[in-house]
Structure formats: C-alpha cells, structure tokens
C-alpha cells in the first residue's frame, strides 16, 4: 500500500499523479462532497474554487486521509491511498492548512525538520546512541530543511520561533514544512488568505517554482486573479459537486460559475436554503451565498 516511489521519472509527464473517483463524504444526512472526480497530472497545477461551504476543504481532507470518504476512491500514482494521514504523507501527498497550523513553540528550522519525519527512520536507541548513521541522517534533514527555507526565502528566520514569524512568512513556512516530506503532490489550502497583492504575486511565483521542482499542485483559493493566473486547470465545486472543470479561460467564461458566486436574480434564496438542509445537492443550483452547508 505504501510502497510507492515518491519521485517519478521526468519523461512520464502527463501521467496522473492523483486520481479521485466519485469521492463522496457524508456527515449524517449532510452530503458535503458528492461524487467528485478529479485527476491531477504530473507537474500540473490544478485550482479548486467554489463558494464558501462548497466542500473544498472537506474534499482536501478526504484526499489526505483526515476523513475517510463514505464512498469513492483516491489513487496516488496508481495505488489506492491509505486511510491514515501519516500514511498519506508517507505515500507522497503533503498539505498545508487553511488556518495556519504550525508548531508554534518550535523554531522555524525544527518545523521543517518535523516535516522530514516520515523520510527518516531513526528510532529511540539510535537517538540515544547517536551512531554515524544517525548523525548523517540528522545532518541530511537539517541541510534539507535549510535548503527549503532558502527556497522559500525565509532562511534568515531559521532560529526564531514559528509563532514570532510575520503572517506571510508563516504561510511560507507551512509550504516549506509540507515540502520537506518530499511529496509528489502538494495540496495548498488557501495559501494567500489574508495576503496583500504583492504577497499574493510572490506566492504565485513560489507555486510555479514548486512545480519546477517536479511537484504537482492542487490549490484551493478564493482569489480569482491568483487562480486564473496560476492554474493549468480549474475545477469548480458548488454544493459538494463539481460544476465545471477546464482551463482558466473556459471556467472564467462559464455563466454557471459566475452565478454560483454572485447569484442570479430570479432564484429564490429561501427555497435554496431549504433544499440544502435536506442534504439534496443533486440539482446544481445557480444561487450563490450558500455558506454554512458543509465544510
């Protein structure tokens, strides 16, 4: 199950890194994610957008083992993903969190070294004994962590506590920490939330650079300029269902997407809420503002 290689040969561009088939997540009577398919190719940047409560983060949690999908299947490089978060990371999918979840009282460097955890094996006795193999592994993870911090441009903060970092740098640190596990796919959950336009643009560059390192990226975002300037493909989730998927141009031109975000004048809001309460997400309603259904 977890005997996957983490790096693929470069000539296999185009093969699917991630294949999600009919992923459905129900919480009691509420269907938060309803039969979503998503395929991510090698070195592809896929955007996932949708109104608040559309089920984007729930879908992410299904991909990373935090939730076990009620039905459906997620394959990473051909193998079905295990159901535990730590095994998913081991398999090669790393993620960041919507609300930053750093290890606040550890140093920046240590945070990234923790990200390296699943690629090292040293146990209790080698930690006490400190043989040459232990020391070389430790040095290797430290070098790796420093390299990643420099890659994201926060190397100068290596020794400060994570909680003392400026907000934007905390977001970068989350990405560095996720990348330390040598993933083949990285899932970014709203990486530019709370950032100013300059920082957002810088994040865009970072994502491109991540792709250059051979990673595929799935990114959830509300900033449309960011998404459309970044992604090869964009999928739109509304009410837990995939509404549209295609190139940024196609998605941007699609009326249903605009309707999902902005609403349409003729649809009745109250009727919409009632339908959502029944968990009936079968019809794609064009009305927006359906916050609070699920996440």
């Amino acid at each position: 199950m977890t005997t996957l290689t983490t790096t693929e040969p470069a000539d296999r561009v185009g093969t699917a890194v991630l294949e999600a088939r009919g992923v459905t997540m129900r919480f009691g009577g509420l269907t938060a994610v309803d039969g979503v398919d998503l395929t991510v190719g090698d070195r592809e940047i896929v955007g996932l957008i949708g109104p608040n409560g559309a089920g984007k983060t729930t879908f992410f949690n299904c991909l990373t083992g935090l939730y076990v999908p009620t039905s459906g299947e997620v394959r990473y490089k051909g193998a079905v993903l295990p159901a535990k978060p730590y095994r998913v990371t081991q398999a090669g999918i790393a993620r960041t969190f919507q609300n930053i979840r750093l290890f606040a009282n550890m140093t920046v460097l240590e945070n990234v070294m923790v990200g390296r955890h699943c690629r090292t094996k040293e146990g209790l006795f080698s930690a006490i004994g400190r043989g040459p193999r232990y020391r070389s592994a430790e040095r290797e993870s430290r070098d790796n962590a420093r390299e990643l911090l420099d890659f994201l441009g926060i190397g100068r903060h290596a020794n400060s506590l994570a909680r003392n970092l400026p907000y934007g740098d905390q977001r970068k640190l989350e990405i560095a920490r996720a990348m330390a596990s040598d993933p083949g796919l990285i899932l970014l959950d709203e990486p530019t939330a709370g950032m100013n336009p300059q920082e957002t643009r810088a994040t865009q560059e970072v994502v491109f650079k991540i792709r250059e390192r051979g990673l595929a990226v799935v990114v959830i975002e509300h900033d449309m300029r960011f998404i459309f300037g970044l992604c090869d493909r964009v999928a739109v989730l509304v009410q837990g269902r995939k509404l549209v998927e295609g190139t940024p141009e196609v998605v941007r031109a699609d009326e249903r997407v605009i309707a999902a975000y902005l609403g349409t004048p003729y649809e009745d809001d109250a009727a919409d809420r009632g339908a959502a309460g029944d968990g009936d997400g079968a019809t794609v309603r064009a009305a927006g503002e359906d916050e609070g259904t699920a996440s």
Partner: protein
Amino acid sequence: MTEQAPQWGADSQPPQTPLAARRDGTSPVSPAIAKALVAVGAVVSLVSTFLAWTWTSSFPGDLSVTGYPGGNQVITLVVSVLLILALGPVYGVPGLRWLAPRGYVRLLRGLALANAVSTWYVLLAIAIELNGLANWVSGSWVAAIATLLPVAGSFLLPDDQRDAPPARSIPLWAQSAIILVAIILAMFIADYGITTGFTEEFIGFALAVGFAAWGLNASGVLARLTELTARNRIATSVAAFAAALLFVFLQTSDQYNTIADDILIFATVALGLNIVVGLAGLLDLGYVAFLGVGAYSAALVSGALSSRYAHTVLPFWGQILIGVSVSIIAGVIIGAPTLRLRGDYLAIVTLGFGEIFRIVVNNLNGQSGPDLTNGPEGVYGVPDLKLFGYDFGKNHQLFGVTFGKFGNYYLLLLVAMAIVVFIFARVNDSRIGRAWVAIREDETAAGAMGIHGYRFKLLAFGLGAALAGFAGTINAHLLNTVTPDQYLFSASAPPNSAFLLAAVVLGGMGTISGPLLGAALLYLVPAKFQFFQNKQLLLFGLALILMMRFRPEGLVPNKRRQLEFHAEEVAEAEAHEVVASEAPEAEAVA
C-alpha cells in the same frame, strides 16, 4: 572558531547612557547621594554582622558573639559582600561591569531588599520569640538601620533598565571556567539551604536567595549565564556533576545526605515525567505508580525478607532489568487503550491507574487476593545493595571522607540521575523529541507531517515508565521497604503524583534544569517548614496558584533551544552537533 565563539562580559563596551536615566529627572536626591547611601549601608551592615545581635544565646544560631558571625548573620554578611561587589558597575570599577549588563539599579534594589528583608526577618524573630525589643542590643540597631539605607538609596536612583549590549567574546576555556565557578557557587548556596539547622535560618536564607535572584535576573547577569550554559552544554553537565559530587564530600555526617537522596530520587522521577508531560504533552496524573511498579518488582527479586520470592536473589542489573521491564509493560498496558484519547480523558485514566496500582498491591496479600506483595505491610527487609564488593549499607572511607549509607546511595543516585539526564537530552534533541513536541503542539498537523501520533505517544509513555521504574529499583534499596502508601496521588511530602507534576510545571516543562530545580524546591521547602504540618498542602496550593498567575512558563522557561543553532551557517550547527554528541575537544579543533 574563536571569532564565532560565544561571548561574555561587557568590559570593552563604551558605557551606555540609559534612556530611562536621561529622561527621569524627578529623583528628589542627586544620584551621588543615593549611591553613597547604598555604599555606606552595605559596608555598615557588613560590619554589623561581626557585632552581637542579641544578648542571649537562646536564639537559634547564637547571635550573641562579637567578632564572629553566626547563624543568620552569615546570610547578611554574604549579601552585604554581594552588595559591595554590585557597587562595582555603579562606580565603573574595571572588571566588575559584567555584573550588570542590563543596568545596575535593579541589581542594587534586589540585593538591598535581600539584605534588608532577611536581616529584618531575623531581628523581628528575635524580638518576637524572645518577647520584646529589649532583646535587641546595639548591634541589632546598627544592622536594622544599615540594611535599610541601601534600600532607600537604590530606590531613589532612577531606573536604568536597558537592552544588554552585545557580549565580549572570550575563549572557550574561560567560558567553561565561568560555568564551573557559577555552578559550584550555586551548589554551595544549595548546600547551605539543605544543611540549615533551624527554621529561622532557612527562612532568612530563602528570603535572601529569592530577592537576590530577582536582582541578578533583572540586571541581566543570569541571562548571560544561561546563554553561556546553553552554548556549552557538555561543560555545564560536567560542572553540574562535579558540583553534585562536591556536595557529598562536604558533608560531615549522613544527616543531610538523606534529604539529598530523596531530592535526587524525586528529581529523577520528575525528569522522567517531563518526557511524558513536557515533551509529548500527555497529562499523566498517576506517574508515581510506575515508580512503585519498579520498586515492587525489584524488591520482590532482591532477596527481601518478606518477599514471596525471597529465595530468588537477582544481581542489581537483573533487578533493574526486571523493574524497568515490568514498568514498561505496565506503561503499555495503560497507554495502549488510553492514548487514543486526547487531553483530559487521559489525565482521568492515569489518575485512576495510579489509584488502581496502590489498591491492588494493598490487596495482593493472600487473603483478599493472590499472595504477591504482602499487602499493607509491603515488602520489607530489602537488603542494601552490594556492587562490585562495595556494600552500600556500610561506612566507607573515600579520599579521607566517611561515606555512610546515604552517602553511598547518593553516589549511585547521582549516576542514575546522570543516565536519565543523558537519555532526556539525547532524545529531546532528535527526530523523536521533535515528533513529541509536534504532537504536543498540534496533533492533527503532526499527523499531516507523517508522524504516527499513537505510536509516538506510546513511546513517550513507555520511556517515561521505564525511567520511573529504574528510579524505583534504587528507591526500594534506599528505603529498604516498599509499601503501598509510599505511592499516593497526593500527600504532604514528595514523591507523589501531584508533587511530581508540580515539580515539572513549576520548574519548567520540557527543560532539564527546570524539574530538577522544581523537585529540589518542592522537597526542601516542606522539609524545612515542618512546623506548618497540616497547612503544608494549603501553602503548596497557594504557591501553585501564584506561580501560574505570575510565571506560567515555570522557573526555567523552555527557549526551545533557540541558542543552540545560533549562527546561520550549517557548518557551525554541525560543530554544535558534534559538541553535543561527542568530545568537547572537537570544537577546539574546528
């Protein structure tokens, strides 16, 4: 290496004009007069300790001798000398400016208060215990007034608190020497506290140490020292070990070694608990049970009189093996089903386990249960250890010093403590330690980083249990008996689960020196305040509340090794790693 070497001392720095002093022109007297008040007060109080403070020798410590300071006078004498030394930075005496990197006024205030409060405490005690101010003699009046002068003077000076200037670099050997001297001094202070003969002396001592520590902390000299010890961890450990050895050589009888032994056992177990609570963040309220499991397991196979297996006598290493293994098994049995829980639930289950252990061993007496532990009477007659022909129960002469039973065990416990500190330090600074802290900080995020939370929590629980079991095997021999009521959740004297947890929290979670300091304080204070008797727990609770209100991070806050990787270069970080793991000379080569 030398240019990157850690730094010390501010002598080469140009004197900085403190912002506060420049702004503040409201002081009613000129600084020169205030400084003079401090100086005169310090010198006169020093002289006063050579005078008699009362006419009768009935006050403890005999303060009636002229020309020879005794009892509490020694405390005043030492603090006065410190105060005179602290005048060094005030008057810019070369070689003494390092005493106050962050400004001297608070140092003066702390020491002046230490001097005045501890002296006034004794003088008031004389007046109250001997019924009336008539028991004061001229020396008492001199001391009373002289110790107040520095307080007045230092509080009339404007505050000069500032950021410490960058420290001057000094060679490695000097750093090691400073650490050694500082730790030996600390040991002498601790030795004085442990060996105080009567309550008045201990209270005076505690007051003086408290205020002086506040002053030294505010002046920034403690921060400099902490920085230095964090950079030279090998030197610090060696110095601490040497100082602890020196302690036992200073003892003329076994009287205070018993206290020291109990402190060492308590501190060792607290350090083990610190892995579970401080690193992995698992609140364990029944930790003392693992000490009991170790002690019972070892006692049963030690050839104790009342042991069911009295005919089975294992060597000491065998007993350790049994004690540690059974503790680990107990830890896994408790941990495996419960560590899937988070937070409070775990605390409740461990609390229950602690009680279950005590009640079970109380009942395994052949009547209400299988005959194993001899019930409430416990396993008594545990023989003293014999290692390599060295009988721990007999007196020995080592380097001209007589080691009684408790002196012998002190040496053994010191080794045990060193082993636990070593394991703690190594594991803390490793992949496993980082995983534990990550779980403590955010278990969900830790899982997303590939950390198998349950497995690592179980590992922390098991390692904690193993270290407690290890301490328990020695404790069984030290006390010669193992009974159920030694392992309570809460009692008025340590070790018990509540005190163990308090030692960790009071001292500083996740640190090495924190629980050691916390354990020493929590043992020493109740032992020295015997007269409080049944109010001890009340005071203990009060102290905890105050502590959580004013210093929730503990006495020794965990800086999470900020200083360890100070320089940016990987090379330097590696040099530190080599130092931390190998020989100290490697750094000199690098």
